[in-house]
């Protein structure tokens, strides 16, 4: 079920600045461990950012996204108190959703 994300959402005018940190290994499947065995690919493939439950941005990721992913984007028509939620799904089917209110 994954580790919690850290979502920051701040308002400037009617635009919300959303910054997300996720905890994920984002293994490419190309690395080997100390014993020489390949570490299997394990990475987030899909991210959805929603405002008050309505998807604003949907992203597809490859294994090239860095470990402990960071994502920053901007949402229009937001106001203080609105809910920003982020959902990710990885290639093993693990998923996680976190939510924050715009300050």
């Amino acid at each position, binding site marked *: 079920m994954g580790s919690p994300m850290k979502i920051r959402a701040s308002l400037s005018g009617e635009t919300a600045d959303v910054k997300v940190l996720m905890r994920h290994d984002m293994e490419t499947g190309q690395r080997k461990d100390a014993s020489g065995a390949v570490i299997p690919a394990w990475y987030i*493939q899909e991210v959805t950012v929603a405002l008050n439950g309505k998807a604003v*941005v949907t992203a597809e990721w490859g294994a090239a996204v*860095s470990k402990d992913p960071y994502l920053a*984007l901007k949402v*229009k028509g937001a106001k203080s108190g609105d809910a920003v939620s982020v959902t990710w799904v990885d290639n093993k089917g693990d998923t996680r959703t976190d939510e924050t209110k715009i300050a």
Partner: protein
Amino acid sequence: MREALNLERRKALKAGAGFGLLSALLSVGLISPQQARAAVNKGAFDAKTLDETYKALGVSAPAVSDQVVINASDIAENGAVVPIGIKSNLPNTQMVALLVERNPNPLSASYNLTEAAVPEVTMRVKMGQTSNVIALVKADGKFYTATKEIKITLGGCGG
């Protein structure tokens, strides 16, 4: 039963931008992640060259545009984490994607934007070596690009 599930799935896929639904299906184990991936950007993430990637994405002859801006440093101290921002000043921007030319699979990430999104995203990607990075933008049905070289330097003690 299988029929029913397939129907369910087709409905979900038909919903198009229904990523939320997709993840809901995934989380209850109705479809496998591989199926999910196949449903969205078939092949593009596995493509090994820029041309193959464009082909898989259905892009032909994208125009270079100064309305697409890449925000990144010329030098990255470490290839494991390279922060890159893409901004589009083109009206009706629907999609932005980041490609790293010399990575084993150039396509790193793509973002479908609704009208509620400002066409500006920042992310961090791995780069195996010094390479051009390409911002690919779809606006009003047409594709545009911007390119920037990012140097990956050997850092620290070197070992």
